[in-house]
């Protein structure tokens, strides 16, 4: 596999204000995420992992530091350009899926294409193809509340991948699943979201799936304390 660098962070720091107090959540993170790898960001609650991936995918400004995604310094872009960059290059899978309850699975999966300006019918057809690839093509016309949790998650995955982004970001994709389902989702993500020119970052603290990662970054108190193929022994 190629080792093209997908994301580079240099000195990324993020502060939050809590009343008069300033809390530093990330302390100068320097790392690289490589394409073709399934990268886990792991850590306890409050360790800064969600903040880190939010910054990596361009939805949260760092207080200091630089973030480059596939060669573009994303925080050097103006607001509109950054939004367009996300639309073209990044796919999101949220923990709670955040599907729109009143439109069917195909339309939900087609949202990024519709947002890009594609004709709705054409976008739905393309989304249907992605749902078939994820083995839920027969559920395309159903509303989210007519689908099981696993099926909803596949729709969310289809939505993240339908516009063929180069970076896929997942937040706790296995949190609500049993061990077998969780492993199936991770296998699926590896199959559809990881490619030579595509990176996939997953935030998780589900130790049942740690063995499926290509790389694990462990975050503790806003610092990367481990970077390797496996989890350190003390975790």
């Amino acid at each position: 596999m190629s080792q093209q660098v997908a994301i580079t962070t240099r000195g990324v720091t993020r502060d939050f204000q809590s009343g008069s107090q300033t809390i530093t959540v990330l302390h100068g993170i320097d790392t690289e995420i490589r394409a073709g790898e399934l990268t886990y960001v792991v850590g306890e609650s409050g360790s800064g992992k969600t903040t880190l991936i939010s910054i990596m995918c361009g939805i949260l400004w760092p207080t200091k530091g630089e973030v480059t995604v596939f060669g573009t310094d994303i925080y050097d872009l103006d607001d509109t350009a950054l939004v367009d960059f996300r639309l073209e290059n990044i796919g999101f899978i949220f923990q709670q899926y955040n599907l729109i309850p009143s439109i069917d699975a195909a339309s939900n999966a087609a949202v990024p294409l519709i947002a890009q300006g594609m004709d709705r019918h054409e976008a739905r057809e393309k989304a249907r193809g992605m749902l078939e690839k994820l083995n839920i093509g027969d559920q395309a016309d159903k509303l989210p509340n007519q689908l099981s949790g696993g099926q909803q998650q596949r729709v969310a995955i289809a939505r993240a991948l339908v516009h063929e982004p180069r970076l896929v970001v997942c937040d706790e994709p296995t949190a609500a699943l049993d061990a077998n389902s969780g492993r199936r989702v991770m296998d699926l993500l590896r199959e559809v979201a990881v490619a030579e020119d595509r990176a996939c970052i997953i935030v998780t603290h589900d130790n049942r799936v740690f063995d499926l990662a290509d790389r694990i970054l462990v975050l503790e108190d806003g610092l990367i304390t481990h970077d390797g193929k496996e989890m350190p022994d003390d975790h």
Partner: protein
Amino acid sequence: MLWIAIRMLTGDKQKFYGLVFGIAFSTLLITQQLTIFINLIERGASAVYSEPTADVWVMDPVSRTPDVNFPMPATALDKVRGVPGVEWAVPHLRAGASVRTSDGDLEGVSIVGVDDATLIGLPKRLIEGDISVLSQPDSVIIDDVGAGKLFENGADPIGARLELNDQRAVIRGIADAIPTFTSQVTLYTKYSQALNYVPGTRNRMTFVIANAADGITHEELASRIEEQTGLRARTREEFAQDGIDFIIENTGIPLNFGITVALGFIVGVAIVGLTFSLFIRDNIKQFGALKAIGVTNAKIRKMVTVQAGLVGLIGYGLGILATVAFIWGFSGNPDFKGFYIPWQIPLISCAAVFVILGLTGWLSLRTVLKTEPAAVFR
């Protein structure tokens, strides 16, 4: 994205119906109350509207409206006729009287005395009878709303005898007239006959109604009459407005209807504001997800605008339809006779709906725009 916005809205049926109801209810309240208000105050001008021919009304300088008047000497008629540019001028009498009803009650009525020779001053159309009936002794023509009021038991008014200020009167026709502001019974008779019915003072002619000769405007004629006679002369339009203004200035009606219209607006803001903010709050994660995916704030604004627009269009349409149904449904009721919806009122309601949706949409939109895309990861 606009299609998605509409589906997001219509998919949440409870809130969608709540929003539509809020707008429809506000529209109904504002449109219906304004319609009733306008039609009611226009009845201050009903005497002018019911008399179809006069260009100018001439009266004592202290007279203000058809019902608030002060009699003039009979010589005023000749003075008006002597003004150049007057094609014709006839006497007109409007006065109050009491009639004893068949069940012994006293009912206040308005006596209208029209010119004996020409019968100018009568309403344009009679529902029953013919204007020639006024040539028979003691004849009066009653207005249709008054007939319903005076003969509630369904008895035929034609031929009925009334005791009018101790004088005998026989109803021989029913006129299609616009009811007065107080819906008082109106009896039309010849001027000479009316003088018998109205308790005597030296001066009893309340108005002279006149027409302008060709080539003279109504305003010009009114001005000439005022200059040359010292009397007050008002064009048809001015005198109609005087009647309306009198009601506006001397009754609590504008305030009361104003309060109801304001309540309609406030209820609209409250229902729509609350429902819209609940809708946005319920969908905030979805909006946050859309923002994270790459939907710009401009597109989000358009989505919320389309949602508000759809609610406004349907709610406003239903509200106007309900108002039309109300007016149509009550058109047979004498109290609502001749009621119509002036074209300006739907425009005012539309503006109110626009403000309600603009205000509530803006408040809800602020929540969406302030939502950081990163919130979807929390």
